[in-house]
Each structure stands twice: as C-alpha cells, then as structure tokens.
C-alpha cells in the first residue's frame, strides 16, 4: 500500500510531465517539414559559441535522424526530463503532503518507506524517458519519415540512467530539508551549474547532459559508458545518503 500512497503523492507531477512530453514529441515530429523549409534562412554570420550551436543544429537538421536528436533528445526531452526528475524526487518523502507522523507510526521501516518512494519515482521517470520517445517512431510516417525504435530505446536508456542521478539528488535533499522549496531550488541550481560548466568547459567524457542525450551514440555509435556509470554510481551514493539521513532524522 505504500506504493499506492507514493503514486497518489506523485501522480500529478508525473501525468503533467507525461502530457507535456507527449505534446513536445508530437510537435517535434509535426514541425519537421517547416524546419526543413526554414533551413536556408539560418544566418551563417553569427559568431561565438551560440552561432556555432545554431549552425550545427541547422546542419544536423538536414537529416531527420539529426533533427530528432538535436531537437528532441538534446533539447526538449533533456531539459524537461531533468526538470521532472527533480520534481519527482522532491515530491515529499515525509513532509509535503501531510501525514508524516502517521506514516512513521505504521509498522514499516524508514528504509522501506524511502525504498518504495524511490522505486515509484524511478518507475515514473522510466515512463517519462521511454513513452514519449516511442511516439516518435510511431508518428514519423505522418511526415513522410521513419525513425528506428531501437535508436529511440538506446537514447531513452541513456536519458533514464543519467536523469536518475538528478532524481536521487532531489530525493536526498528532501530527506535533509523539511520544507518543499529548499530541495527543489538546490537541485535546480545544481542542474543549472552542471549545464553552465558543460557549456563553458565543454566537458566531454563525463558530461551528464551529453550522456543524457546519447551524443556519442548518435555521432559514432558508442554508448557513453563512463558518464552513465558515473551517473549510476552517484545516484546510488545519493540514495545511500538518503537512507542514512532518514534513519537518523527526528520528526
């Protein structure tokens, strides 16, 4: 029954995320013909890193696979999955929705309470990573294109593993702070901070965002093992920290 409670606590965040990602995936596919028409209008004289990114995106969009990767996996899905991983992780382990003392008075261990909460959140994150992406192979024939289901699944696996690091960070923070805002703001600050570091220093091998988008898989068919393993290790460490923290905490 703890599953049921966790589901009720997080369902709106999950369902809103799922609806937004479905819309975004459908829009990405539907807009491709328009994007192709606009490609010749892309300015070539914008300098700096931003200009380089625009030109790269335009160049990649000349192929449908490149367009889907740059528009969906590297941009829309990556940003929204990061946001919803954090939102799902901060959806109150024992604080926000009321009833913390009631839950703690039940004959279950804190480890089990946290484990159920983490498993529910990860299952929802898994659905967010896979279901909207699977819409792309399904809708692509509508614009006269095709997209491989296998490609979609590989990118979703990368996204899920790397995003689970943000989820576990948010979960850890929600066991430290009893208010709902501190964990959310700190986790978002960490996400922005990592994006900034990635942008400035062009992190390659250990970039969590490059791992989330499956960049090495897209460019040369190689899975980003180093970053994925690092993300998984960090996620496990954050979870262990959350377990330890919750066990020691007074309510």
């Amino acid at each position: 029954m703890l599953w049921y409670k966790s589901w009720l606590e997080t369902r709106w965040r999950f369902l809103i995320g799922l609806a937004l990602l479905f819309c975004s995936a459908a829009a990405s596919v539907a807009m491709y013909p328009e994007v192709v028409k606009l490609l010749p209008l892309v300015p070539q004289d914008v300098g700096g890193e931003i200009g380089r990114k625009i030109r790269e995106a335009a160049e990649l969009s000349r192929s449908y696979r490149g367009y889907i990767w740059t528009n969906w996996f590297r941009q829309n899905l990556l940003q929204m999955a990061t946001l919803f991983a954090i939102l799902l992780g901060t959806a109150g382990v024992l604080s926000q929705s009321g009833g913390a003392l009631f839950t703690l008075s039940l004959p279950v261990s804190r480890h089990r309470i946290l484990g159920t909460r983490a498993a529910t959140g990860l299952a929802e994150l898994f659905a967010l990573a896979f279901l909207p992406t699977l819409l792309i192979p399904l809708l692509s024939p509508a614009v006269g294109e095709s997209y491989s289901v296998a490609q979609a699944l590989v990118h979703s696996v990368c996204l899920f593993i790397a995003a689970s690091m943000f989820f576990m960070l948010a979960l850890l923070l929600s066991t430290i702070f009893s208010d709902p805002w501190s964990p959310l703001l700190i986790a978002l600050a960490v996400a922005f901070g990592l994006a900034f570091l990635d942008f400035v220093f062009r992190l390659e091998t250990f970039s969590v965002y490059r791992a989330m988008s499956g960049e090495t898989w897209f460019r040369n068919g190689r899975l980003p093992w180093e970053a994925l393993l690092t993300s998984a290790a960090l996620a496990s460490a954050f979870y262990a920290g959350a377990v330890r923290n919750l066990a020691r905490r007074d309510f």
Partner: protein
Amino acid sequence: MKRSGVSSKRSFAQEVVVADSWIIETAALRKTYDGVEALRGLDLQVPSGSIYGFLGRNGAGKTTTLKILLGIAHATAGDARVFGLDASAPRSSEEIRRRIGFVSEEKDLYRFMTVEDMVRFTARFFPRWRSDLEQRYLRKFELPRDRRIRALSRGMRTKLALLLALCRGAELLMLDEPTSGLDPAIAEEVLQALIGHVANEEMTIFFSSHQIAEVDQIADRTAIVDLGRVVLDGALDDLREDFRRIRMVFEGDAPSGDLRAPGIARVQRKGRVLTVLSRGDTNPILDEARALDALSIDVSPVTLKEIFLETVGGEE
C-alpha cells in the same frame, strides 16, 4: 489490570487490580534538540491496562516522549521500552508500532486521500484490523467515506484518526493531545468514544494532555511532567487522597513564621487565614496549627488542578 463492563472512569478506578507489568517504561530518558533539553532524565512506568494521563504544560516534553516511544524521534540518552521492547532499535520499534494505535496532536493524515482510501490503506498494515469496529465507528462518527481528508473539519479529522487507531486491534493506544483544537461538544464525543471503547476492549491508553479536566475525566492514573521530568505520578484517587487543603483561621493576622511540620507542600497567607496544601499525613500539621492557637481548622480534599499547579509551580 482487569476491567469489564464499565461505563465511566470512576468505575475503572474501582476495578483496578494490581498491574502485573509495565507496558511503557522509561529510565533517565534525555532528549536534546539543538542544545535545548526537551527531556532531562524522564522516568516513567505505565501499568498495563491503565488509562494513563500524561499531564504537563505546553513544551513540558510530552510529545517528545511519545515520539521516542514510537521511534519517530531518537533519544539522546536513557532507555525507553514498550511491551518490554527497546524503542530505539529499528526492528523492535517496528514490532512496537504493529501493536500500537497512535493519534498525533496535528491529526495529520494524507490530505490527498478520501476517508475510504485512508481506512483501506491503514487496514493493510495491521493483520488484526477490526472490520466490525471500522463499520461501527464510521457510522457512529458519521464520516463521509468519499470525502477527501483535506475537506474534513478538524473535528472530523480527529474522529477519523481515532477510528484508524481504534481499529488496529492494538494493545496500546497512544494519543497526543487527543482533543486539542476541538470544540467542547466534539471533545466530549471523542472522550466518550474512548471511554466506551476501553469498556469493551482489553487495552491500555496512554494519552498526553495539558487539559487537567480531561485527565480528571478519563484517566485512572497520571504522571505530571514538567521541564522534561516526571514530577509526580500515581493513581488519581491515591493522589487526591494524599493531598489535603488545611485552612486555619486565627484571631489576629496569621502567623508569619514558617510551619515546621513535615508534608507541607505550599503555604498561603491572607489576613487571618492561613491555607496549607499538605501531602501525606496531616496530623503533624494539625498539631502545629493547634499549638499556634488557630480558632478554626478545616481539612478538605483538593482537586487535580490544585495538585498540578502545585507540582509544576504555577499560580493558583
């Protein structure tokens, strides 16, 4: 302690048989929050089968004690046992919670669930869940099954929290300020439900309160806690028997010197009248009063309120 077919707290007290075990026992229990001492060596023994009122002012350490007994907070030092099990060990704490019905002061339940959801959810954790009581109390408390908790009044939430505690098939009910924030009519209904429940079920009730009248109404034993320590405990009837008010009237102003007889808990002078709150044998005080040529000496029983105010140092 054995009890049967009783309908009021007075008859509970009369039917008290010597307790054969402590259902709750703490020794030198200490708890510090950020340098503030909430408990300062609390010693408590609650006999099995009693209705035990844990009386104290706000901030005296009542809620902290309950939380430590339930494993919701961790003691800084000392020992806390429930059913003889160590409340600080995670595994035994789980077993303790399996055998306890708890109602928190905030009556905080899951706001997003309906009454029906909340009942079904809770029932799954307790193998001895009493479906018969569930149906009875749903009817008695007139709880709307399909209404969300967030839409319930505080009174309704208290009744639901009580239902969830009573139906667990628990051996021990722990209630933290069960009637706090309720209007007198609903508070009375809740207290009557408790009295009615224990009349039919073999169980112990341990409840915290800062309302003396409430403890006086339903408890058969009490501990008065102040500044994190138990300052007085025992059967209510024994306490009332133990304490006496002795009112002496003198011809002129009451004598200003200290009375030397043992058992004097408090002395109050007002013109010709000297009022003494005594504990234990009153004869030495009466002898001294006669020696001081008191015109009249009147010995009368005292209320729990007077005992409470005396022991926690409050003003009458």
